[in-house]
């Protein structure tokens, strides 16, 4: 069977499976839902995907569900988007960040200790960001001090997705105040139930609490839970961050495309289906969504063929973030006063739910987190266009480095 026809077969297989297994009522069930219901849905959908072998297509050959090519992974994500299946946000860090870091940088023993538990539903969170560090990872301050066969951790992390539910944490901590700030970071796997760990959910402006702060007060981590060498944490963290390889934005831009009818619904509901001005803006949005999909696809194809260039990923993210803003802003505008009334958010949903004010505010997550739009613009200007970088040592008199 040729690659093309085996891919077509996979697409049909996944599509069939999804059509039988996605509960179309999940959006209604997740609206204004309790945490428990959200938890239950995530767990159930996760275990179904694992059973079907669609949760870990990116894992290596030999692991359950693994060994799929990037092209096949793309097909699975496209079909998941097309079927409007729930997003597995509770397990994302475990399935991608934790697993890929273990595959690429973990020892065989670490892999066999942690990966099977992930398949059984262990929840992970990421401990990279810190207050006041913003997009500047090299300035992290949480400390890990070696004492015998343990590191002792003290400090604070923030913006950790779902940390309040997590069993384990991917932690980046400073073991050394070396000359280059990146050089002194070490990468550890931390048990969230260890003594000295406190989690405080961050209250978001939408009323959601998808993120949390984590406080570490002399938390002990065994040395065998270190990934890579002491001081090599920066490089390991790059592996973590690169782990989803562009698939997320393929999925999300496809989801955005399938969500376009939400705008038409809003037009109908506000009696403006024939408003020429709205139609023109909607047409422009369709084009931008189409282009966001094309950029995400092209990026993944480049990764598949090994042609990725510096800045490519920044273009995809910047364009997606901008288009998502335009999408949600248009919905908000059409909805008018009705869109301003408070409605409960939909847990674990996609970026477009038709709860327009929430969707609009949430769109800022994409232009702020994971390297803000401003950082992406710097990268594009400097690495793609070759414009000069501002010297790092430019500071105002009497201020900082």
């Amino acid at each position, binding site marked *: 069977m040729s690659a093309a026809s085996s891919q077509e077969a996979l697409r049909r297989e996944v599509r069939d499976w999804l059509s039988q297994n996605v509960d179309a009522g999940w959006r209604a069930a997740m609206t204004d839902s309790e945490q428990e219901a959200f938890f239950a849905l995530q767990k159930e959908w996760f275990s179904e995907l694992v059973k079907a072998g669609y949760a870990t297509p990116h894992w290596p050959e030999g692991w359950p569900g693994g060994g799929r090519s990037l092209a096949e992974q793309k097909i699975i994500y496209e079909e998941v988007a097309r079927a409007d299946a729930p997003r597995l946000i509770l397990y994302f860090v475990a399935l991608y960040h934790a697993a890929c870091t273990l595959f690429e940088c973990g020892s065989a023993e670490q892999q066999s200790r942690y990966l099977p538990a992930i398949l059984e539903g262990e929840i992970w969170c990421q401990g990279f960001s810190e207050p006041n560090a913003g997009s500047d990872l090299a300035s992290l301050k949480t400390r890990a001090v070696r004492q015998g066969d343990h590191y002792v951790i003290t400090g604070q992390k923030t913006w950790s997705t779902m940390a309040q539910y997590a069993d384990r944490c991917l932690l980046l901590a400073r073991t050394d105040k070396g000359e280059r700030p990146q050089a002194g970071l070490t990468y550890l796997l931390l048990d969230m139930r260890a003594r000295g760990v406190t989690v405080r959910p961050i209250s978001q402006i939408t009323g959601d609490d998808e993120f949390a702060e984590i406080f570490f007060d002399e938390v002990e981590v065994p040395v065998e839970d270190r990934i890579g060498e002491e001081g090599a944490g920066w490089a390991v963290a790059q592996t973590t961050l690169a782990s989803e390889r562009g698939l997320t934005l393929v999925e999300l831009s496809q989801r955005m495309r399938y969500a376009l009818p939400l705008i038409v619904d809003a037009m109908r509901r506000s009696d403006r289906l024939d408003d020429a001005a709205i139609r023109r803006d909607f047409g422009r949005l369709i084009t931008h969504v189409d282009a966001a999909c094309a950029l995400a696809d092209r990026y993944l194809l480049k990764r598949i063929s090994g042609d990725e260039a510096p800045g490519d990923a920044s273009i995809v993210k910047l364009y997606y973030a901008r288009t998502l803003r335009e999408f949600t802003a248009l919905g908000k505008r059409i909805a008018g006063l009705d869109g301003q009334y408070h409605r409960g958010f939909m847990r674990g949903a996609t970026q477009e739910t038709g709860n327009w004010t929430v969707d609009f*505010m949430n769109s800022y997550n994409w232009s702020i987190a994971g390297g803000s739009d401003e950082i992406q613009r710097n990268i594009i200007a400097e690495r793609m266009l070759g414009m000069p970088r501002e010297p790092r040592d430019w500071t105002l008199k009497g201020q900082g480095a």
Partner: protein
Amino acid sequence: MTPELNQLTDSARQVVAGLGLGLAADEQEAYSLIAELGWLMVSTPEEQGGLGMGLAGACALHTELGRGLATVPFLPQLLAISAVSSGAWPGQEIWLESMMSGERRVTTSLGESSLTVERDGDGAMKLNGRAVALASADCASHVLVEAADGVCLALLALDQSGVRITARPTWDVTRRLFDLEVSDAALDPQLIIAQGESASLLRQRLAILRDFALAADAVGGAMALLEMTVEYLQTRQQFGRPLALFQALKHRCADLKAHTEAAQALLQDGLDAVTDREGDVIATPEAEMKALAVKQLACSAYAAVAEESLQLHGGIGMTSEHDCHLFLKRALLNEHLGRRQDSYDRGLADRFIAGLNQA
């Protein structure tokens, strides 16, 4: 601005900041306070016992209330007072006095209403339909109703049969809005303020007052938020420098400043264009156009400042711990109060083109 207006602005700023009219304030206490301060009298002519500071006075106060994210439902009462004070109708004197003192509270729709009036067999007037965006209606005894067909303006008791209000919580927690549903409620002939042509003129004047007041709120909010954001950028360090030193951010702040200043200039300039020598609102097509422009520009400036501020604050702005989102949510709601958002631009163009065709 006149010295009196400057003084009003200064004292309002102190009151809003110092005595805490913001989110933390108790709405009832705040209401009593502004009543004591005489703000409810600000636009009423002196000969009717008011301060005679006209639209300019109302806008000065709304600017400061917007700046401080005040929760006090000032505008609905002010609109009702303006209605009550106009023309001559039976209950005018008593109602005006008790409303200016804050004793009687009347709410008014800040959105579009679809109320209609019919006379039944006995000649009694029956009201039907819906109105939206009545602020703090649960604290009012009456609502100012405008029949969409222009037949009349009247006060309607909220406890009357056939009248129902429903709370409609908004993302903007600094306002408490209600829907009004009316089914076959009889209008009290004693409480009819205007009918026919004079009702229609009064409606226009109230719409102008509403648009200017919302614009003033927006200008105040935009100015305060931009200051807050610039201060944040001055403080916050990244890559070893204050964010305020990054030229891309400076230029975006400069554009927001220009937008805000333009809104403020247009608002000030508009005050002359829509008022007579006494500072009272006039109902001309030009005045209506000016109000459309002022409201549109101010609310778009506020939204632009709020949206960019969210981005410029980064993660911290996405948390409820920071005030950024309170401004954002108020800015978004302001865009949708008054007429439907797009109809401001559209209405201006329509009136301009109609004006050319007449000339």
